[in-house]
């Protein structure tokens, strides 16, 4: 192991320990509830980061999978009285069904796929809003039970935080390992040169589909977690603005960076929640900040260190 790997591992572990230490330190505070939402959104953004950053699948409809997971999981919670882990399974199945519907669109590239995925997200938003008997529509589904794992009911923001953080860590580690496997290497090859990868025997279409399918898993889990933590889901949270917010998190965090998804979620959620004194101008600020970031920091937060070190915007040229 190189010295750099050891250093990075140490920093990662310290950060992780710090994240877990927040739970007892801020038990019962608004800040911890805020962090629960950051992690839930970060999860959804993590899946999107895999699609956009690792596979070049520019998905503008990620909120649809967030919603599919939420509604799929909540159905089993409310009608079949399942607990959280089996509900995760149901959410993944429903989100994967959505990915299968999206699969034929994957042969489109660039702007065309962006447009098609946008249309998919907009269509699913309409479906969520109108299929009231299944989703409750804009009024939403109420009285969703809190998370229950191995017989333990998790109530209060400390327990919610620990659960959401643990799910986040598992997903993060899973994607980190995946990207080191043969699958990750093939994906890397596809991003470098699609024709080159194809000539080396990589099935590009299949890689893109697998990346999409894997990328819908974290948002599906995030959907269930959101529903159980808030005990309500309304269709309005799965609109185009949510898809935009998620892709903003990925880009603001740094498209090539896995932890950047969570950093982006932190920034976006902070702007959305904290400026109480200028609450009225929150979205104006949000739009302005994103517009500005696209100009001054196209590589995202993860590129700040590199930019300071003098390596000029390598991420700008990352092919998307």
């Amino acid at each position: 192991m190189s010295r750099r790997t050891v250093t990075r591992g140490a920093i990662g572990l310290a950060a992780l320990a710090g994240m877990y230490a927040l739970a007892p330190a801020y038990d019962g505070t608004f800040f911890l509830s805020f962090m629960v939402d950051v992690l839930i959104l970060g999860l959804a953004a993590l899946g999107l980061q895999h699609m956009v950053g690792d596979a070049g699948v520019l998905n503008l409809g990620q909120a649809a999978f967030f919603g599919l997971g939420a509604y799929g999981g909540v159905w089993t919670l409310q009608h079949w009285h399942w607990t959280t882990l089996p509900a995760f399974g149901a959410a993944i199945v429903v989100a994967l069904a959505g990915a299968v519907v999206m699969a034929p669109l994957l042969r489109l590239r660039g702007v065309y796929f962006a447009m098609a995925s946008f249309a998919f997200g907009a269509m699913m938003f309409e479906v969520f809003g109108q299929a009231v008997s299944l989703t409750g529509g804009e009024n939403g589904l109420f009285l969703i039970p809190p998370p229950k794992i191995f017989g333990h009911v998790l109530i209060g923001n400390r327990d919610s935080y620990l659960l959401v953080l643990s799910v986040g860590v598992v997903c993060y580690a899973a994607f980190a390992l995946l990207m080191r496997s043969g699958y990750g290497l093939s994906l890397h090859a596809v991003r470098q040169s699609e024709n080159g990868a194809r000539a080396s025997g990589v099935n590009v279409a299949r890689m893109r589909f697998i990346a999409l399918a894997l990328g819908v898993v974290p948002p599906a889990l995030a959907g269930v977690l959101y529903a159980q933590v808030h005990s309500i889901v309304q269709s309005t949270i799965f609109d185009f603005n949510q898809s935009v917010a998620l892709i903003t998190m990925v880009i603001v965090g740094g498209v090539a960076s896995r932890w950047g998804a969570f950093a982006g979620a932190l920034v976006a959620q902070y702007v959305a929640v904290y400026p109480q004194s200028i609450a009225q101008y929150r979205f104006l600020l949000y739009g302005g900040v994103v517009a500005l970031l696209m100009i001054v920091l196209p590589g995202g937060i993860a590129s700040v260190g590199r930019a300071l070190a003098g390596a000029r915007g390598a991420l700008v040229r990352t092919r998307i």
Partner: protein
Amino acid sequence: MRVGDLPQQIVFGLGLGAIYALVAIGYSLVYRTMGLLSFVQPQFVMLGSVFGYTGLVTLDLPLWLAAVPVGVATALVAVLIDQVGLRPIRRRGGAEIAMILATVAWGIVLVEIVRQSWAYGPSALNLRSTARPPFHLLGIEVRWDTVGSLATAGVLAAGLALFLRRTSSGRALRAVGESSRTASLMGIHVERTLALAAAISGFLGGVAGLLVGYLFSAGISTGTIGVKALAAAVIGGFGNVPGAVVGGLVLGIFDNVVAADVSATWRDAIVYGLIIVVLIVRVGGLVGRRVFSRV
């Protein structure tokens, strides 16, 4: 579904179709010249509707006189956004997603500025009650506002076609649409031409917004009509400017027939589904030649 109503629904749909066509031209022109899917385009409709309120209600201008200042004001905003928000990214050769996201962000900024300036937005700019009564043609009811919006779209589309073919700026635009690199080697000022494309798309979006305000209502939520117009651009072949006009009319009719005869609740879902179907079946659009490139 009563078949006898179909011609009537088609005629009603044409009015909305003319609006879709104007916005779709903007989408296609911007994509053709900048290679950009612009999500600020629908907000030009919103802006046009609000400027229209100022022109028609506050200043009490007649509709035909309001169209030009509303269009020009929206065009100025479009150029401003292009130069301040998009040009720096373009110059750096920024990633596609950065450009798309920047347009989304500018769209949010526009909506929020209007929300702050006009409170929750003027909501009733519907002046149809004062309009002339409809006339009948072959037993079909035709409203004057349908005729008006069709005429407006027709005049603007024809004007644009003439501009693109007969003037040197128009030819420059077409040249940049073919290849901005070659165009710049031929001595065309590419940045100025792109600003012109932004101005035209803003002008058309603004006028479309004025019509939206006149036919339906004005306010911050009218951008959704602009978003649905994306389907028109796709039907016409994304980047195909004449196709966008046809796509707009087709979408207007489709939208209206679906709302009247299939389901008013599901009309938007069906329109978005149509985008997906067209992109899967024929990327080049349902109008004109099959296109294989740029996919």
